[in-house]
């Protein structure tokens, strides 16, 4: 057996260029599968991972979602907030108000959304996961202080805004006391384009007493759905309407994202499968060429006593050796490519995620390489083994 491997190795080495090309053909197919799947898993894990961190949250909004649009139906009252607070199992509750305001920095004016809320509670929702880049978070007595999101600081105005710069919000002067870090994918739309004020200051600046958003944290994630239902009922009762409020748990969002990712991964695997089909045709072509070229040698081997099964196993060993190497190279290339893709895609799309190279994907890639290699080697190998010795010897 060892000798057959040696013999196969000799002929692979003899046709070095062609063997390398075949190995590359398999490797590219496998690399495509491995890298695309790893990137898919990476994206999924980056997003669900962050969501899991927020799994204990329930967002409560006064309105309804029809299709993909949120329609605001009004606002919550102080009584709503108090009633929700009374529900058992709730750890934290933040009532927030928000609205667009005209903001002026130096000579440029821009409309920016203002969020106001209890500073301690608001902080517990945003400061820890996003982080403050410059300055500090709001204090309860910061009546004229504000903290701004990354895009407000860098993109909205002509000049970059730093701590201690002055902003005019709806005619009132505010001093920037802190600037957020650039938020990760999940928080980006919640933090980056906003200005945060204390509840008191926001009521003044926005000229409103309305609560437009309530965020709730629960003690036990398993109870989240139940509590969400209860919140909805309590608020709907207060307003005498059937569907005045929506209360969404993060869990339900994670589920939705999961299905989306299954679809994405399916598409990625489909593309990789095409690459693999192309690669297998390449392998089969190479093996056929190799058999044709060595017809004479096959004839000689049979003339000196080789059985058909000897010839068959020699060629099969040869093609599995080539596919094994191709599979290994493909897995390595795929893992490297996945890292590069996730890095550059992350930079291009402004999201941060690392490719997740799962061992089962690597094993699967190896298995696919072997199966493809052996199957596409089988037809030429059988053809070789069935040649009549005298015709094969005559073939030059």
């Amino acid at each position: 057996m060892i000798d057959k491997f040696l013999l196969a190795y000799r002929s692979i080495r003899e046709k070095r260029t062609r063997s390398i090309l075949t190995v590359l053909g398999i490797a590219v197919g496998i690399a495509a599968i491995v890298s695309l799947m790893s990137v898919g898993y990476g994206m999924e894990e980056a997003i669900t991972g962050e969501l899991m961190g927020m799994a204990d949250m329930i967002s409560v909004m006064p309105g309804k979602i029809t299709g993909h649009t949120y329609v605001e139906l009004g606002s919550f009252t102080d009584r709503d907030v108090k009633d929700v607070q009374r529900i058992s199992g709730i750890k934290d509750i933040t009532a927030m108000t928000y609205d667009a305001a005209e903001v002026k920095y130096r000579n440029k004016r821009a409309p920016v959304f203002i969020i106001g809320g209890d500073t301690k509670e608001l902080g517990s929702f945003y400061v820890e996961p996003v982080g403050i880049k410059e300055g500090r978070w709001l204090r309860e007595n910061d009546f004229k202080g504000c903290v701004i999101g990354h895009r407000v600081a860098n993109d909205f105005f002509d000049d970059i805004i730093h701590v201690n710069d002055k902003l005019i919000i709806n005619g009132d002067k505010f001093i920037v006391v802190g600037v957020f870090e650039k938020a990760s994918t999940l928080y980006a739309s919640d933090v980056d384009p906003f200005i945060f004020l204390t509840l008191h200051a926001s009521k003044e600046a926005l000229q409103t007493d309305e609560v437009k958003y309530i965020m709730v944290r629960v003690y036990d994630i398993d109870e989240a759905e139940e509590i969400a239902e209860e919140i909805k009922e309590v608020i709907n009762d207060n307003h005498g309407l059937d569907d005045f409020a929506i209360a969404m748990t993060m869990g339900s969002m994670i589920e939705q994202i999961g299905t989306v990712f299954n679809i994405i991964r399916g598409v990625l695997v489909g593309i990789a499968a095409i690459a693999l089909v192309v690669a297998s045709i390449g392998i089969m072509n190479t093996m056929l060429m190799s058999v044709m070229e060595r017809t004479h040698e096959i004839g000689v081997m049979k003339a000196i006593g080789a059985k058909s099964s000897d010839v068959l196993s020699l060629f099969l060993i040869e093609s599995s050796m080539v596919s094994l190497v191709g599979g290994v190279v493909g897995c390595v290339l795929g893992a490297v490519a996945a890292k590069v893709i996730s890095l550059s895609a992350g930079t291009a799309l402004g999201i941060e995620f690392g490719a997740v190279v799962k061992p089962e994907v690597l094993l699967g890639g190896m298995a696919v390489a072997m199966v493809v290699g052996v199957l596409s080697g089988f037809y030429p190998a059988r053809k070789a083994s069935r040649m009549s010795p005298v015709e094969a010897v005559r073939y030059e």
Partner: protein
Amino acid sequence: MIRTENLTKVYQMGDAEVYALHDVNLDIQDGEFIAIIGPSGSGKSTLLNLIGCLDKPTSGAVFIDGINTGKLNENGLAEIRRRKIGFIFQQFNLVHTLNALENVALPMFFAGVKRETRLKRAEELLAKVGLGDRIYHKPSEMSGGQQQRVAIARALSNDPEVVIGDEPTGNVDTETGNTIMGLLEGLNKEGRTIIVVTHDAEIAARAGRTKRMRDGKVLD
């Protein structure tokens, strides 16, 4: 003993049937040195291929030690080629990826002989044909005569009773041809049956018996 019985081989060339061999009856005794001589196209190589179990007859039969080779399957024929017959080709037909030693050991490999045993025997056989100092050379690093001597050593590898040479001196110069004929004569003295096809009368003259062929028939 080798015996052919009404051995016929027909090739289909378009609509025409070409008789490469036509009712050939030939007896070859054990230990005989026989030369088959004839112009090209006379069917001598076809006869040799049939005797050597490389090809199957259209009709008639080849008996080797009483076995009707036409009744054997693929593996049975491979077995005969491996155990009973050593083939020497005009073109040497060595495996060019292997060195001399490995080429000689190859038939033993197919016969399932252990690695140490076959390498030792291959070395002895190469020494016997005078190539003891070139065992690690590849065919491309050897002259035609040297390659043919490797081929003879290879033919002897499974210690066959019959050695068949299809124009074994056809691709080498006269002096080398003499050396090779000398080797074959030596093998004949060991008791092996030697069957050689040639169109060189001088070579044929060194055989114990000569048969002439023309148009697919053996002449008396």
